[in-house]
C-alpha cells in the first residue's frame, strides 16, 4: 500500500531529534508538526518571522498579526520569538536551522530540486524556497513518487527550472525513503507491501539497491 500524505509526514517525523529547529514548507511538510514525538522539544521556524510556532488558534482567538508562512492564523508556544524577514533568512543562511522539509515537483539524482515554476503556466514565485534550499544543512523532500500523469519525479536531471542545486539529502515519497548520495538515489526503505521492482520502475534516475530493503514501520 502506498503511503497517505499523513503517513509520509509521520515517516519524516522519525527524522526529528530533540532540540531541532525545523522549517516546514507548505503542503505535506506542514503535517509533520502533527507527529512530533511526545516529550521531544522541536522548535518550528516560520520564515515570515517566528521561532516557536504553535498550533492553529481556536475559533474566535485568531490574531491577524500572527500568521505562518502559508498565511494561516497560528499561535505561539512558550519561549517563542518574533523577528524581521532579514533575520529570519539570516538564521537560515547561517545554517542555524537544523532541518528543512519541503515539497518538490522534481528531484535529480544529484540532489537538484525543482519546485517553483512550470514553463507555460502562471508563475507565482519562489517565495523563500530558493533561500531555504541554498542554505539548509539538511533538506528532506516530501512528495509523491510520480506526478499525476504517472511519470517519475525522481530523475537523472530535472527538466523544470531549478530551485537549487545539489541540496536535497533525503526524499520520502508515498512508496519509498531514498537518500541522495554522490552515486545517485539510494533506496533506504519501502512502503509496506511495495516491492523493490515497483520502486525501480517508478524511479527514472539511477537507483541503488543494496541487500534487503526493509519495510517502513508505523
Amino acid at each position: 500500500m502506498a503511503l497517505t500524505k499523513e503517513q509520509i509526514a509521520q515517516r519524516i517525523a522519525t527524522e526529528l531529534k530533540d532540540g531541532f529547529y525545523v522549517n516546514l514548507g507548505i503542503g505535506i511538510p506542514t503535517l509533520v508538526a502533527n507527529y512530533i514525538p511526545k516529550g521531544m522539544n522541536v522548535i518550528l521556524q516560520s520564515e515570515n518571522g517566528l521561532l516557536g510556532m504553535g498550533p492553529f488558534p481556536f475559533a474566535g482567538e485568531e490574531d491577524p498579526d500572527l500568521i505562518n508562512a502559508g498565511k494561516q492564523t497560528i499561535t505561539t508556544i512558550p519561549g517563542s520569538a518574533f523577528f524581521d524577514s532579514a533575520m529570519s533568512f539570516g538564521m537560515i543562511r547561517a545554517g542555524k536551522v537544523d532541518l528543512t522539509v519541503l515539497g518538490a515537483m522534481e528531484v535529480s539524482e544529484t540532489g537538484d530540486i525543482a519546485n517553483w515554476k512550470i514553463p507555460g503556466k502562471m508563475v507565482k514565485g519562489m517565495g523563500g524556497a530558493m533561500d531555504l534550499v541554498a542554505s539548509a544543512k539538511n533538506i528532506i523532500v516530501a512528495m509523491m513518487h510520480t506526478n499525476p500523469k504517472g511519470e517519475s519525479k525522481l530523475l537523472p536531471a530535472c527538466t523544470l527550472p531549478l530551485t537549487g542545486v545539489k541540496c536535497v539529502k533525503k526524499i520520502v515519497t508515498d512508496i519509498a525513503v531514498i537518500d541522495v548520495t554522490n552515486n545517485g538515489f539510494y533506496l533506504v526503505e519501502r512502503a509496506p507491501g511495495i516491492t523493490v521492482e515497483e520502486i525501480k520502475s517508478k524511479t527514472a534516475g539511477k537507483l541503488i539497491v543494496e541487500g534487503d530493503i526493509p519495510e517502513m514501520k508505523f
Partner: protein
Amino acid sequence: MNKVVNNAEEALRDLSDGVTILLGGFGLCGIPENCIAALVKKNVKSLTCISNNAGVDDFGIGLMLKQKQVKKMISSYVGENAEFERQLLNGELEVELIPQGTLATRCLAAGYGMPVIYTPAGAGTEIAIGKESREFNGKEYLMEYAFAADYALVKAWKGDTEGNLIYRATARNFNPLMAMAGKITIAEVEELVPAGSLDPDYIHTPGIYVHRIFQGSNYEKRIEQRTVQQKQ
C-alpha cells in the same frame, strides 16, 4: 523637525507618477493599509512597487493593480490575485520575482549603507543569469544590489513623535527593513504616542530612518487564511 502628519494623504503629498515604492507586509499581514488607500485615491501611475506579495484582488496592492497604477512589481510570491495574473499574461505588467531572503536582505543592505550582498539563494538557477557571482569556501554566491527606492511605506503597531517604531508579532516581517531603505520613509501606526512614552530598549526601528509618521485609522487587518482548530 516635525515628522508628524495628520493622515496618509498628507504623508504622500509629494509622491508622483513613476516613483519606486517599498511596501511592507507579508501577505496581508502588516501592510500599510492607510497609505495604500491614499495611493488608490491619488491614482498615481507607472509605479514600481517592491513588496513581498501583491495583495489579493480586492485588498492591499491588489487595489492599486485594479486601477493599473503599477508598472512593475518586484516580489517573491504573487499568487492569490486574478487581476495580477491577467495583467501579467496581457503584458500590461512587468514582474521581477526574487527570493524572499534576497528581497529582505537587499532592503537591509540599503539601510546599512552597503551597496551589495552575496547570497547563495538562486545560484545555479535561472535567476542567476546575468548576475555576477563569486565563490566563497567552495560555494557559489550571487551578488545582489541594495534597493534604491524613493519611498518606503511601512506599518507599525506603535510609534512616537520622533518616528521610533515598534511592531507586533509577525506583522513585523519586512516593515523594519523597508523602513531603513526608503529615501523618504512614511510610517503609519496604530497608536502614535509622545516622544518618551516608548521604552528606548524596545524600539525596533529608530526614528532616524522615519521621515513622516501618522496614526492610521479603520484598520481592517484582513486575514487571508483563517485557520482554526476545534476545541476537544
